[in-house]
């Protein structure tokens, strides 16, 4: 008998004590933040531009940020966020990253031998890198290390390759690349790409890379109006109005290819 009384009594006393403490020291919790947190993918990649998933949930709850900034969240999750916040659904086009270079060791020449830290930004600090083409991929893996989803593979012949099925378009690789070889393009339009980044004249380009775009304009002429734009001596796809996949047949150097 006394044991029951004692246990109940202790329980009640403690409950009262906790209640009092919560009453005077408790911090009110926003239930909205809790439910938003549950919808977050939890990758903490920073693709939304904020400091991780819980920061984004907080920002959305306080109105600092809009839903839809997260490139990893599925469309349903974004819709649920909008529902919870009572705002209009604002969908942004999902993006994907592409390495616009074909200059691996077999195609691209080196202008010097680089001996130092195996990192692209580090290599750029030493005479601008060892690659002959100053616009090309250095192949030392800064982008692969920056990717939180493991979507970038460093090929053995020193070229970065992004796997489309793993890429969420968060943009970390785009920020990490010191040569701006990686481009963020809308996923729906990512069917063909120009795998070259150098706007230099063809004779200069060809001495340093066999797979360069020679600026022959065949693709621009064959494609529809404004589908392929010439940027100096470099062809570039207009991703708002992309050409049909068959365009790859006309490229003489095969730098215009289907997305792989």
């Amino acid at each position, binding site marked *: 008998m006394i044991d029951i009384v004692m246990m109940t009594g202790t329980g009640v006393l403690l409950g009262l004590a906790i209640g009092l403490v919560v009453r005077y020291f408790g911090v009110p919790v926003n239930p909205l933040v809790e439910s938003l947190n549950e919808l977050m993918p939890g990758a903490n990649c920073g693709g939304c531009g904020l400091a991780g998933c819980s920061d984004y949930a907080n920002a959305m709850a306080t109105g600092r940020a809009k839903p839809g900034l997260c490139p990893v969240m599925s469309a349903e999750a974004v819709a649920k966020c909008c529902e919870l916040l009572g705002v209009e659904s604002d969908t942004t086009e999902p993006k994907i990253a592409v390495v616009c270079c074909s200059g691996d060791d077999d195609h691209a020449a080196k*202008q010097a031998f680089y*001996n*130092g*830290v195996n990192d692209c930004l580090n290599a750029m600090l*030493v005479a601008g*890198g060892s690659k002959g083409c100053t616009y090309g991929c250095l192949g030392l893996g800064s982008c692969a290390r920056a990717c939180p989803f493991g979507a970038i593979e460093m090929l053995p012949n020193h070229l970065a390759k992004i796997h489309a099925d793993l890429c969420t378009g968060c943009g970390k690789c785009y920020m990490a690349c010191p040569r701006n070889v990686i481009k963020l393009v809308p996923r729906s339009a990512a069917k063909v790409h120009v795998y070259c980044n150098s706007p230099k004249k063809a004779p200069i380009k060809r001495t340093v890379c066999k797979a360069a775009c020679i600026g022959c304009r065949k693709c621009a002429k064959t494609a529809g109006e404004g589908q392929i734009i010439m940027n100096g001596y470099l062809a570039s796809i207009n991703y708002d109005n992309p050409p049909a996949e068959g365009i790859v047949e006309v490229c003489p150097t095969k730098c215009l290819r289907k997305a792989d």
Partner: protein
Amino acid sequence: MSHKMPEKSGLNKGDQMNKQIKFYGGVKLDEGKMTSNEPIISAPLEPLYTVPLQQHIGAPAKAVVQKGDKVLRGQLLGEAGSFVSAPVHSPTSGTVRELSSCLGPAGAQLPAVVIESDGEDTAAEPLPIFANWQEASPDELKARVAEAGIVGMGGAAFPTAVKLSPPPNVTIDTVILNGVECEPCLTADHRLMLEHTETIITGARIIARILGVKQIIIAIEMNKPDALEMMTKKAEGTGVEVVGLRVLYPQGAEKQLIYTVTGRKVPSGKLPAHVGCLVTNVSSAAAIADAVCLGKPLYERITTVTGTPVAKPGNILCRVGTPYSSALALCGGVKEDPLKIISGGPMMGMSVYSLDIPIIKGTSGILLLAADEVSQYTPNACLRCGRCNDACPMEMIPGILSSTIEFHHFSLAERWHVMDCIECGCCSYVCPAGRPLVQHMRRAKAVANATRRAAEAASKK
């Protein structure tokens, strides 16, 4: 703020060498000075000069000439782009072939003016010569330094006129001329001190007049006894003191030099001006003297071309815009294939892959290294041996810093004073694990600067 100042630095008495302040760290290097006894050779005219508009720290110069313009030697090609900038002058007379870009020693493309020489080498009107600079006002003299495009010729190429304008709340009481040339293999300053001693002393006195300073000290390393003797002799009665310093790399680094000569330590993140000192290279001082007394702007400098693969190493007086290949050809070309070409010296110079790079105001040397002189290392993990901590003259902790930077903890690296690094190379030199420590430091500094710039841009929005 006043500092305790002795009448003389007290460094000259023979038995005082042991009492000479030794800065922390540093390494004893093989001096490799092959060209100490080679007199300066004036380079003949080149057919083409590619003059970069960015030869200095700060904003690039803005071109004031166009394609097709006729220019004369010493004529203004580009005016200073901002306060921290310097003008650029033509090295010879001729025609402007084009305004394009060229490869610079750091690997970046620099905007450049290409001048086709007409062979006449006609001089432009010199800047107005000061009849008696001792009576000219300091501001007039400083304006001349700016007008003549003088920059730090020890390699850093900081615009000298900006250095001579310290912040309003600091006073400078000591001018130190850096004739130390601690970088191995380079002898440009040595030869200048032997052959143009008086010009240097005049330059030092002009600087002292600009700043209103009484104490002028010219510091020379003890491995140049002939220069010490010549300078001491010529400086007698001029009020300029000449001191001989112990041979230790990097004695010629600004902060280490100030500490040895005056005993004052420059605090982390501060300038030498904050301890009342100004350090300038002897070549810059000579250029200032030429600008004031001859009205000559800066368009040429002495470059040491050296290394075992070079047939006849020497010290060449080259005009800016001369390609490295021409300077090398003047030294008899190569007698064996070099593995490495360095712009500067072996400790702080930059590796380049092309000889088409033009000589600029800060090119103190071109060093070629043969295959058996280059160490091809594979970096290993830090051994925690601590040799780098003993060698670092800035009293930093390069070993642990390199590990934090390798694993991308950049904010931690910044907290541990990576921005203090002067990139002297002592740590990389002593590291038994072959770690490229200076490259790690440069990476951390690049990230810190980029973060700071992004934060400034974001706060401005």
